[in-house]
């Protein structure tokens, strides 16, 4: 191709890129970045004489036992809830990507909880796990002792994880079904002819072919779970004894309830940094075979 044509082509791509990208970039710039920068500024800005930038807010945070606990609880929570939700979603996706009768109905029903505002899902599940509620009633039917559920520092977080699974698993399942449907049937047929078992087909065809979708679901789910706060705020307010105080709930409490916006801003900066680190690690791990 002649040089002038190549140059024109590059220019052409630039212009096209601009047209396609401008609305989206404007949106991200104005609706996420600008307020984020304002928030960061609030976290490090100190009015009055002297150096206008200070890490005082961060110092306060890291010496606050509540914040440290929130960090710990959130990391533990993240380690459990993400694999759990994705495994359940994958299992359901494998089941519901088959052509079962009325499969669209079953998929929709499992997906439905995500359409209910989180505040109400929280109330409904709170009723389920009341000490005198249906969950304990079912346990009684199975001759098991009643459990304290949300009133126990040991059980509160697991119950919240369960509730989040009920709410979200259908959502992630849908993405994975889309991915499963993309896998060409010919691959499976060839493997069957070669005598591969169901499990081997799963390991060597399904999983690798799903890698892109799994990567997407993993990253998106991780991010979503770092931002959970409505069920915590409504059901346990972070208790008992701070055992369910996820970091977004702590930020909300600090910013909206304690009226400490600079502390909340600093905490948000920490949260986003942690998420960035974890998401980049996930990206790196997924980078293995395909480009993500």
């Amino acid at each position, binding site marked *: 191709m002649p040089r002038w044509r190549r140059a024109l082509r590059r220019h*052409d*791509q630039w212009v*096209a*890129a601009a*047209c*396609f*990208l401008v*609305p*989206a*970039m*404007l949106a*991200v710039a104005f*609706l*996420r*970045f*600008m*307020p*984020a920068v*304002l*928030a960061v500024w609030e976290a490090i800005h100190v009015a009055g004489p002297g150096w206008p930038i200070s890490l005082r807010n961060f110092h306060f945070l890291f010496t606050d036992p509540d914040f440290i606990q929130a960090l710990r609880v959130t990391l533990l929570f993240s380690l459990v809830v993400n694999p759990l939700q994705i495994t359940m979603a994958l299992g359901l996706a494998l*089941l*519901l990507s088959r*052509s*079962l009768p009325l*499969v*669209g*109905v*079953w*998929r*929709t029903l*499992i997906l*439905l909880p*995500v*359409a*209910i*505002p*989180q*505040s*109400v899902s929280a*109330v*409904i599940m709170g009723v389920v796990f009341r000490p005198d*509620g*249906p969950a*304990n*009633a079912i346990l009684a039917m199975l001759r098991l002792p009643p459990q304290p559920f949300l009133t126990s520092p040991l059980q509160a977080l697991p119950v919240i994880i369960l509730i989040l699974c009920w709410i979200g698993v259908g959502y992630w399942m849908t993405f994975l079904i*889309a991915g*499963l*449907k*993309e896998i*060409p049937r010919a691959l499976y047929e060839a493997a069957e002819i070669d005598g591969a078992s169901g499990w081997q087909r799963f390991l060597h065809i399904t999983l690798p072919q799903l890698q*892109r*979708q799994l990567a997407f679901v993993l990253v998106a789910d991780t991010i979503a779970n770092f931002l959970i706060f409505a069920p915590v705020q409504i059901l346990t307010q972070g208790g008992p004894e701070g055992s369910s105080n996820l970091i*977004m709930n702590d930020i*909300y409490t600090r910013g909206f309830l304690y009226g400490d916006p600079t502390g*909340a801003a600093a905490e*948000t900066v920490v949260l*986003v940094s942690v*998420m*960035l680190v974890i*998401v980049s690690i996930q990206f790196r791990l997924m980078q293995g075979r395909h480009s993500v």
Partner: protein
Amino acid sequence: MSERRPPLALFLLAVALALSAMLPIWWAAISALRPSEEVFRYLSPISVWSLWPRHVTLANVHALLTGSFMRALCNSMLVTSLTLLIGLPLCASAGFAFTALRFPGRSVLFAIMVVGFLVPFDSVSLPLLQMFQVAGLQNSYVGLLLPALGNGLAMFLFRQFFLTVPDELREAAMIDGLGWFGIFVRIYLPLSKRAIIAAGMILFVFQWQAYLWPLLIAPSPDYHVASVAIAQFAGQLDVDYAQMLGGAALAALPPMIVLLFLQRYFTSSIAATGGKE
């Protein structure tokens, strides 16, 4: 997956899982048919009355359908539809730009976009509110709509999906003389039905579930959305559970209908995607 008819056991399993996921919503729906005193009456021990109202009353349903809740539901449907209509093209275009076009700074911009959607929306809602107040967008549909449009996750999804479209198709189209817009609309989009639905779901859930932002930007009852209206039933001193739960069940209806309708696109298998085989 194989063509053989799947075993009955799997079908029953699917039905059982679907129905148990649905149970709490069902309970919420019939709570609206109960008189207020009976909402929590039959929780334990579990009986047939746990899942069916013992005494049916239409008073709560009537209040829901004739009160301000219906307006809030309509607001939600309007705002969410507009979000999809404007947001999907916006996110798809971005995904396309990051995939098909080559320009300097592409990966940097992509990284910036990814970081952008890591920012928890609820944390920046206060500074965002100030910006919107200055622009006079309080109590308006535009104010409700804007923050949901640029959804980084949806953009990311589109990019992921567009990466699977083989280069040959694009090159062929360029040789045929299609401009970038033509390539986008005539080649990429038709191949991406599933991505569009998936991204639509992301935008939809984000907007339908939105609570904190609509509350901040539109406290006027005329602009309440469904999630806010449902929370309104929780007063300081007493909660109208029958209406709240009934409202929640009602608010689940439009998404349910839409999702049922869209299932068709999920079941169509991809026979040919050009260079896939």
